[in-house]
């Protein structure tokens, strides 16, 4: 089947959705997706961030579709022509959708641990407006404890249902879901249950916003101060392939590896994610690369920097013995940069 997206032609299998075809082309014409997740079945169609304009239905029926279509749920037809970023209608719609998603979002990015790798942040940076028109109070929920490993911030949730699908498709018994309707809809465990399934940690990775975050990483550091490394270990439960977020020699967080669309490549188990925080547990493959303009790339170097050796008198460059003391952040142990000789 031949489909044209923003003037790029591509040959795809029948049954492919427009979003998948656009991702095969890549580049700017990929619509943003907040709820669709290619690794999970039956996701998508909820956030409307991926709306595209179908300017020609198919070869057999060339009429354009009257309304914008959700590209994650619309299958391609032979000879279909789609406008994504090249259509003003689509950009206008994305702007409106972003505004809708942000209506109840608390915008506490300075506090949120997801800041820097948040899909909603990226979306509003690209398509959002800097002013809000919503004057009413935002919906708020009582904080709820859903277990030792996962922190739930219901205020930040955009109800994408990804975490529900993870629990349904990856774990044996789902104990959480969306309770309530409309404005009162909230992610919750049914009567204060704790989520302790072995693969429940993947909820953190699939969450597009900071509604589900890692409790072991809570407020430890900002995402961009850590250096991401690819690493693996022998795990009986999962593939063991992860990204380590290191600060000096300390592993601050373990996540699954995410691809260019911020989707997990392979789901990992809770043991890998929460329990193994020693560098000796892992075989570190090398630094992980990120998009050029990602804030995660800030201050990161893709190769390990060696200490420059200058042939001179021993310790002369380090000053006198009595001056060689850690003066900044005294309570925090030494890191790689200021290691003791």
């Amino acid at each position, binding site marked *: 089947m031949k489909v044209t997206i923003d003037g790029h032609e591509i040959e795809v299998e029948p049954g492919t959705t427009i979003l998948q075809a656009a991702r095969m082309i890549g580049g700017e014409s990929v619509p943003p997706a907040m709820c669709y997740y290619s690794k999970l079945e039956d996701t998508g169609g909820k956030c409307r961030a991926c709306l595209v304009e179908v300017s020609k239905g198919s070869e057999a029926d060339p009429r354009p579709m009257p309304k914008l279509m959700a590209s994650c749920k619309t299958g391609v037809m032979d000879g279909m022509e789609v406008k994504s970023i090249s259509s003003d209608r689509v950009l206008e719609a994305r702007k409106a959708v972003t505004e809708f998603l942000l209506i109840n979002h608390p915008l*506490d990015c300075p506090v949120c641990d997801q800041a820097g790798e948040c899909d909603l942040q990226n979306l509003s940076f690209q398509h959002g407006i800097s002013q809000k028109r919503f004057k009413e109070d935002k919906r708020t929920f009582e904080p709820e404890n859903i277990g030792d490993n996962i922190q739930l911030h219901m205020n930040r949730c955009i109800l994408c249902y990804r975490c529900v699908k993870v629990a349904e498709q990856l774990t044996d018994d789902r104990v959480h879901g969306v309770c309530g309707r409309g404005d009162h809809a909230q992610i919750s465990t049914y009567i204060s249950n704790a989520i302790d399934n072995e693969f429940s940690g993947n909820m953190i990775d699939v969450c597009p916003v900071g509604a589900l975050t890692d409790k072991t990483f809570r407020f*430890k550091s900002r995402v961009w101060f850590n250096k991401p490394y690819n690493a693996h270990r022998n795990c009986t439960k999962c593939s063991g392939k992860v990204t380590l977020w290191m600060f000096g020699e300390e592993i601050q967080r373990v996540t699954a590896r995410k691809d260019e669309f911020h989707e997990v490549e392979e789901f990992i188990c809770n043991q890998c994610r929460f329990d193994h925080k020693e560098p000796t547990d892992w075989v570190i493959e090398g630094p992980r690369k990120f998009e050029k303009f990602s804030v995660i790339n800030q201050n990161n170097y893709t190769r390990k920097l060696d200490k420059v050796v200058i042939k001179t008198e021993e310790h002369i460059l380090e000053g006198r013995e009595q001056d060689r003391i850690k003066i900044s952040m005294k*309570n925090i142990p030494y890191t790689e940069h200021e290691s003791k000789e």
Partner: protein
Amino acid sequence: MSTNTNTYSLSGRKKMVSNKKLSWSERIYLIAILKGMMITLRHLFKKKVTVSYPEKVRPFSPVYRGRHMLMRDDEGRERCTACGLCALSCPAEAITMKAAERKPNEIHLYREEKYAEIYEINMLRCIFCGLCEEACPKEAIYLTKSKQITRADVDRENFIYGKDKLVMPLEMALQNTKQNQA
């Protein structure tokens, strides 16, 4: 060409120096000294251009960037949430911080759920560019509010300014609130 260079001046300020002998009255330098003394005396009665610092301090310009100040809000709570944007924007990498979670009994101390447990600025590294102030989303750090100069010192360790020196004094916050309410 060579004869022209002696008389022609590009700047127009070239002076021909004469080798003429000084006269007797010129040679005793009495008039020259008196002329010089007159200039000195005239300056005695002019307004001084210096002040006797540190007893007297000149008024700061409103945009003077001096020592940083971590602000408090109207209720005296610290505004900083340790988001790390100041440290990220700092070109001299002078700022370091460690975040902590606010306990339920500390709500009157910190504005948000997260606060800076340690916040340090290395004043030896700081170039007072003000980018941290510009980056701050919470209006927490200002270089223009403290109206203080970072004092000189002989010990390196004293230049690591922690929260004890950076956070706005509580009395100042109270005064500001009173002013705002009045």
